[in-house]
């Protein structure tokens, strides 16, 4: 069986890359093939990279509060390319935003404090095209 390919991305102006790097290493250690876009990507460059790299799932790391604007745009940019790769958002996301993000096509949201197991399970589930069985967000 080939490894699941995951694109981890920072979109927008947020330079906080501790989370994305930790998650990238966690996923790599769990057997995923991980591609990291680097900082300051736009929804378009992320979508283009996802198509080029033929990934199974995208993990967006967002800590600046711009998730409500930018995450749905990533989904739109993907769909515009005829790509239905699932998108998982992780970072500083208040629980109140989770349902809106899901309505905008985000497969799952990982909030602050998600454990390695939760990250791996959520990404793997999303990559299989399933909705996570329970709310993956370890919010209260």
């Amino acid at each position: 069986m080939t490894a699941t390919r995951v694109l981890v991305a920072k979109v927008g102006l947020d330079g906080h890359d501790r989370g994305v790097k930790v998650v990238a290493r966690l996923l790599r250690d769990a057997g995923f093939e991980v591609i990291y876009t680097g900082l300051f990507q736009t929804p378009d460059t992320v979508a283009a990279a996802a198509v080029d790299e033929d990934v199974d799932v995208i993990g967006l790391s967002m800590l600046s509060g711009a998730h409500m604007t930018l995450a749905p745009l990533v989904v739109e940019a993907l769909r515009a390319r005829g790509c239905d790769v699932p998108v998982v958002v992780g970072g500083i996301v208040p629980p109140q935003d989770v349902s809106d993000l899901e309505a905008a096509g985000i497969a799952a949201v990982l909030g602050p404090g998600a454990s390695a197991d939760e990250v791996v399970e959520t990404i793997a589930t999303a990559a299989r095209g399933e909705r996570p069985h329970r709310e993956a967000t370890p919010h209260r």
Partner: protein
Amino acid sequence: MMSMNPRAEWKKAFDESRVRTERFQTMSGIPLEPVYGPEDGEHPGQFPYTRGPYASMYRSKLWTMRMFAGFGTAIDTNQRFKDIIRAGGDGLSTAFDMPTLLGLDSDDPMSLGEVGRCGVAIDTLADMRDLFADIDLGDITTSMTINSPAAVVLAMFVAQAESAGVPRARLGGTLQNDILKEYQAQKEFVFPPRQSMRLVRDTMAFTATEMPRWHSISISGYHIREAGSTAAEELAFTLGNGFAYVELARQAGLPVDAFAPRLSFFFNAHIDFFEEIAKYRAARRIWARWMRDRYGATSERSMQLRFHTQTAGVSLTAQQPEVNIVRTAIEALAGVLGGTQSLHTNSMDEALALPTEKAARIALRTQQVIAYETNAAHVADPLGGSYFVEELTDEMERRAEEIFSRIDEMGQGSMLEGCITGIEENWFQGRIADSAYELERAFNAGERIVVGVNKFLEGNDDDDLEILRITNEDEKKQRERLARVKQDRDDGAVADALDRLAKEAIEPEVNLMPALIDASRAYATVGEMMNTMAGVFGRHVEVPTI
């Protein structure tokens, strides 16, 4: 002159200090000395300042309760500033939004969704005017957390103050202006490292001659730690960067004692209480020794490390957020026992969003409890002499010195070159990412307990905390405002000012501050000034590594 013993020397310095009128005693009436320890030992205010930069420490003046704030438009943040002043905060600290931090205007396509979100949006002098409306800039000190566009924002601040009748020489405050840690940790960079360092040099030279009350750089370990470093790495990378700025200014011909007294530091206060205190003590000692022995400083002020502290954002949890008040209190106390000159306490809701007014007030109250209820500030360096803390202080220093040797080696005898090379080769970034991953591994293995996250989970399902919501309305308002400013300004004057800026940017020996101040007065935008310089300097791109 007969040399006095350290106690007598300290006593003399203490007696010459202004002391607050308060009864310095315990709650039960036991009188307290300003410091304890052997007569022939090091005292506060004595080289190498392990025990504090001043003889009298908090007996003269408590730390500045400087709360970081900024969101939405300048008008919104101006209101928050006034709230802070009313609530007893005595220094302002400005958080800028992501576009401003990256030198982009609010109407730039890359700014979409980020305007006013993590801080206040500043595009032109008009925003600077609203930001400080009805606040006397000659009276209060103002800290501005900005790095890549630091020179631009300082220019705008000077232009605003002078238009309000406050001459630049009267302005007190701090510009973060620490670009090296941006490449290492926070990653809000624009120009390549060497070109950025030219702007740092320009601000240092400008403030050294024209703004005697201004701190030109706040050399920051905070972000290095938040990005995942250990305490020793935070200490060593930060001081290493400090040495790089000292070498930069010396290369520019500034005598060390002319600028070093205006350098200040900014450290994290993480949850490991004693390690943090040891870190602050070691920082003062290392700085003093290096400044005297390696850089030939002779003025005491050049050797005395002064620092701001912020409690650790990364220690906050989204689960059971009220518990964050406790974490923050412990961290803040470490800063105070370590002798910090100013302090920001984080709010309990910051693992979820920017703080609400109530959460920010509780965070300030936390400092006030330490300052006014605990009597913890009565005695300087209260943990000095503890076998444990002294040993930990020594160990911090040893570990830092090992790292300095490595940086010095990378720079072939220059800390400045070592820092730049380390950045270009991803050495700092790699070490920080390794340490962050090690902490995460320990957490996942259950070796590191975080209350409410991997243990003691009861209560995680309680009702949601009320959090601050920032709508896209602010972004829209700010874009409209910028459009109005652009319509009303004299485009010819803007073009002339930017033209001059471009011409002067090409000449590496010219100080760009005067050109930036003139461009600010003409209502050139932050983005226009930054783009003009990027046309000459180029832009930095980080090679993505995991």
